[in-house]
């Protein structure tokens, strides 16, 4: 017998006795029948209970900005690409950037061209040492989540796994219509986009890297970026 058969056998044996079902009274669902296919009764719309997100895109963009700033990220709504370029140039000057990491993309290409710094492009592989010595990373993303202030990145949308975590300053360039109400809608979007061909990596980034492991005191930049900047294009 293989290990797989051993463990699945133990599970099937154990499940022969049914467990009491959690009650539904608080949900007002006690009237529903208890059957073997309880999954059908599992509520599919947790939106009703999660924190409110507002109705319109404008409200959600505003909420995203507020939440991102609460998480100590920097958020700016820009009027167009030229304002984005201006802003990144200012970040670069303030941070004294000499080298940046980036991937090829609709927004990263023109912004990097204007910056004119030494670049490490991750698209076709890179040396870890090169990326590690970058001052900042420029990436795009899959979605921005209003409810939590999170940025959803994936391997194809953010130049792989390490680009958005290794350099000390992560700058995300996103479009306004990438703002979604909650994590559920963000996940739905990637499911529709990739179908069964998911990238091997997707991550909800919520603020810069942080720790509270010493006396529960918040310190930014524990292992990953100390700064996270999100710039929104119309």
């Amino acid at each position, binding site marked *: 017998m293989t*290990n797989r058969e*051993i*463990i*699945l056998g133990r599970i*099937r*044996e154990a*499940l022969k006795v049914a*467990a*009491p079902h*959690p009650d539904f009274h*608080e*949900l007002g669902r006690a009237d529903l029948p208890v059957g073997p296919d309880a*999954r059908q009764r*599992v*509520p*599919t719309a*947790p939106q*009703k*209970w*999660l*924190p409110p997100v507002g109705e319109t895109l404008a409200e959600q963009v505003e909420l995203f900005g507020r939440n991102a700033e609460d*998480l100590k990220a920097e958020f700016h709504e820009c009027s167009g690409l030229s304002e984005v370029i201006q802003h990144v140039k200012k970040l670069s000057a303030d941070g004294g950037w000499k080298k940046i990491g980036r991937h090829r993309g609709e927004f990263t290409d023109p912004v990097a061209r204007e910056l004119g710094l030494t670049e490490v492009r*991750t*698209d*076709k*592989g890179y040396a*870890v040492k090169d990326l*590690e010595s970058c001052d900042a990373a420029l990436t795009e993303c899959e979605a921005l989540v209003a409810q*939590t*202030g999170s940025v959803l990145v994936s*391997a194809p949308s953010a130049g792989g*796994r*390490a680009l958005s*975590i*290794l350099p000390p300053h992560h700058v995300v360039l996103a479009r306004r219509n990438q703002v979604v109400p909650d*994590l*559920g809608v963000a*996940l739905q979007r990637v*499911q529709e986009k990739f179908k069964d061909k*998911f*990238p*091997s*990596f*997707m*991550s*909800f980034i*919520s603020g*810069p*890297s942080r*720790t*509270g*492991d*010493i*006396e*529960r005191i918040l310190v930014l*930049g*524990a*292992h*990953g*970026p100390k700064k996270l900047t999100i710039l929104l294009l119309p």
Partner: protein
Amino acid sequence: MNAQAHEFKASVRRYTADLGHRDWIQKALAGYYVKRDEFKNRFQSWPSARNAAAEIKWEAINHLDRYLDEFVSKLEARGTKVFWAPDAQAARDYIVGVARAHKVRSIIKSKSMTGEEVHLADALEQSGFEVVESDLGEYIVRLRREPPYHIVFPAMHLTRKQISDLFHSRLGSEPTNNPEDLTMFARRVMRRKYCEADMGISGANFAIAETGMISITENEGNARLTTSLPKIHVAIVGIEKVLPKLSDLALFLPMLATAGAGQPITGYNTLYGGPRQSGEPDGPEEFHVVLLDNRRTALLADAEQRDALHCIRCGACLNVCPIFKNVGGHSYGTTYQGPIGSVITPHLRGLQDWKHLSQASSLCGACTETCPVKINLHHHLLHNRRNAVRARPPRSEKMIQAGFVFMMRHLAIYRLAARIGRTAQPLQPVLRATIFDPVRAWTKTRSFPRLAKKSFRELWRERKTS
């Protein structure tokens, strides 16, 4: 009393007398309570969210075979190697085997309670591999050669002074009073390790059946680095971590953060669905998922307590437990501390050896009330007490009970006993807490209430005659 119970009692005696420790833990958790309530209140309905979460986990655990099968076939279809580990030894052997086969030199590890459970880091070190814990709290307790104090906050019992002294003596850092300096020092040490390591080990918070992915929740970004740079990634995952659908995360990720750490959302919530796929610039060449049973199926077989497998290891029950806050995380002597640890450890490691933890409760129910997946924790402590007594009836306790019943049924003996008690009580301060004191378990830390001078019957008789 067995060795585990003995050690537990000794440690509890030490910690409960340590008022400094108690203050420290209270202080460390004070901010958590405020933040947890703030973010709970942002939910439109936290109680309904709890119900939904409990329901989803119920569905997953009660059809575990089906969902595990789906999870594994989806993972394997995209090139992940899945190993089913019936016990801790099998899991350790497999992972050591992977490290040997690839002639690994150094290993970086992110936080995993399942890894702690099977003593993975020790096993790898004993086989000659260097293992670096990358989570700051884990790194600190590992340097001190002690187990994590708390499943979510491993180093919450330590002051910045202790950590500064530790870094100074072990790593030669400058002494400092500033948590940020200490963190940055650890960051620099670890950066080098990431770039060198050829194997990364992680745990997982959720296993998504629908899409064949693991989900890792963390704040520091250490797990992301651990799973990005080394050429092999091994994730050790308890079989109970399964969630049926990807969309279930929309509920579980905010709830885990809020209940566990008083955050609206954790810093990084990352999904891994395989090794580096074609067209991707980086990521490990090999991705191994080790699915661990290690007696979880024994808990599964106990239908009454099966919901203990719903646990998402958020640590909320530890944070509210009056026992945990007084005896401290190290007293338990278990991988999982606090109420959830007291419930599951007897199932995972033997009822008779760990039944004493069922008594480490005031049965106040704070754990059950706070649990985001509604595990009936304090009732399960009672279930474990009952099961332990059924399996091995305690003879001395039975005799004492029988004696008590006999006394209560025979008025003359009851009166005699009451009289002896009343007459002898003035002697009690002399004998207090010594072996001759019949109520020493109580009087060791408390004073015994004074018996009334006259019994009710005597008072009644006097009133009737006067």
